[in-house]
């Protein structure tokens, strides 16, 4: 287990316990676990490495993205993980200056599902990175960004 995840688990565990006891603001839970290195990485591999061990491709992750983006500034995505004990879902956009876009922590009692909208600079892959039972898995899907016009 890498150092980042070890500290994250420790922090989440501690924060949850404290939060339950009403001793720290709940906000602190998220604050403690921001993977700065991943957000600063300028290529998807760099971001993934910062998040942990290399991720295995998985068909148990359903990543839905549009085939063609209507507007590269607003691209709807949804991720559903069928992997047992899913605890984190991250979203990366391959061709963005900083591919790491978001990380969602999924506590027990919340479905391993998220839906949001991201900016996509140009045609390329969108990745969903899922941590389940302490291991990393990934899935990808291509979204095309086009100039438009001329159809019909």
């Amino acid at each position, binding site marked *: 287990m890498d150092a980042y995840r070890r500290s994250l688990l420790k922090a989440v565990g501690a924060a*949850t316990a404290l*939060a*339950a006891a*009403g001793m720290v603001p*709940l*906000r602190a*839970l*998220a*604050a403690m*676990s*921001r*993977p700065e290195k991943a*957000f600063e990485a300028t290529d998807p591999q760099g971001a993934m490495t910062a998040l942990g061990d290399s991720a295995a491709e998985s068909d148990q992750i359903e990543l839905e993205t549009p085939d063609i983006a209507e507007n590269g*500034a*607003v*691209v*709807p995505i*949804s991720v559903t993980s069928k992997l047992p004990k899913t605890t984190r879902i991250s979203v990366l*956009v391959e061709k*963005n*200056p*900083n591919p*790491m*876009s*978001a*990380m*969602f*922590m*999924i*506590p027990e*009692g*919340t*479905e391993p*599902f*998220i*839906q*949001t*909208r*991201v*900016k996509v600079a140009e045609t390329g892959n969108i990745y969903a990175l899922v941590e389940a039972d302490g291991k990393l898995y990934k899935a990808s899907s291509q979204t095309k960004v086009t100039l438009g016009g001329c159809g019909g």
Partner: protein
Amino acid sequence: MAGRMRMRARMSGDVAEVKVLMQHPMETGQRKDSEGKPIPAHYIKEVMATLGDRTVMAAQWGAAISQNPYLSFRIKDAKKGDTVKVSWTDNKGETASTEAKIG
């Protein structure tokens, strides 16, 4: 700052589906204004959702989330009438929160 968020929470089968819209520019820091001056980065970094004492979603975001962000998630073990609360904090330390009863 409740005006800066809209939220809907509804039971769908045995899970509560929560949808949130947050009013925010989500500036990346890489754009320039009409005079060519860089527009400073301004984006939501953290989002938290709770159901009573329970944290049901915690997220860390970069500036690549679209302007006026949308987020949807689904809570198990929730019931009609429960209150879901969602809050965000941006990179300038501004915050907003809102809550809704599950319908």
